[in-house]
């Protein structure tokens, strides 16, 4: 069992923790943080397993993918935060409205 795989398992741990919080926590800011942590977990799986190259430098393709992913994540986070602000402004609640209450 190599360190690389252990880091990947840590990434899975982050993914699972984030998913738990995304489902369980009600405050939207907490949900946005949870999604970011889940994303970091996936990036960690991608990058850690790229270091399984035998004696050579690590595989650069997942590194490029993760950089792409980080930029996408900040874009999504910015949009989510503005939406959150607008939701609080219009409803006064920092959480999702109950879908059944019309």
């Amino acid at each position: 069992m190599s360190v690389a795989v252990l880091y990947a398992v840590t990434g899975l741990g982050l993914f699972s923790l984030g998913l738990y919080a995304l489902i369980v926590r009600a405050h939207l800011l907490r949900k946005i943080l949870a999604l970011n942590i889940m994303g970091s977990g996936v990036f960690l799986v991608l990058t850690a397993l790229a270091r399984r190259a035998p004696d050579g430098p690590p595989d650069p393709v997942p590194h490029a993918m993760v950089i792409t992913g980080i930029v996408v994540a900040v874009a999504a986070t910015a949009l989510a935060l503005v939406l959150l602000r607008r939701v609080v402004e219009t409803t006064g609640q920092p959480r999702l409205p109950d879908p059944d209450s019309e």
Partner: protein
Amino acid sequence: MAIATLLGWALDGLLMLVLLWLAWRVLACKGLFRAVVLFIAFGLVLSLVWVRLDAPDVALAEAAIGAGLTGALLLSTLARLDALDAKQDEDASS
């Protein structure tokens, strides 16, 4: 050589634990401000992890974008949410 490897293992193990602990605190701690600050710390530790994984490009991107700018966005949102709250409280009391 052996000591260096051992230290490397210890450092890796420590980083993994710190990462998981920080993630848990970000999602479970009381107070949003504290959560955001912990999240920024999480991003910085993560960029150390990228260095350990021989991914310096990712480390740079993470430190600048993941921790830095996302952190700034989160903090400014928090400030605006606080302002909104204050306004609502005033509305309620008047």
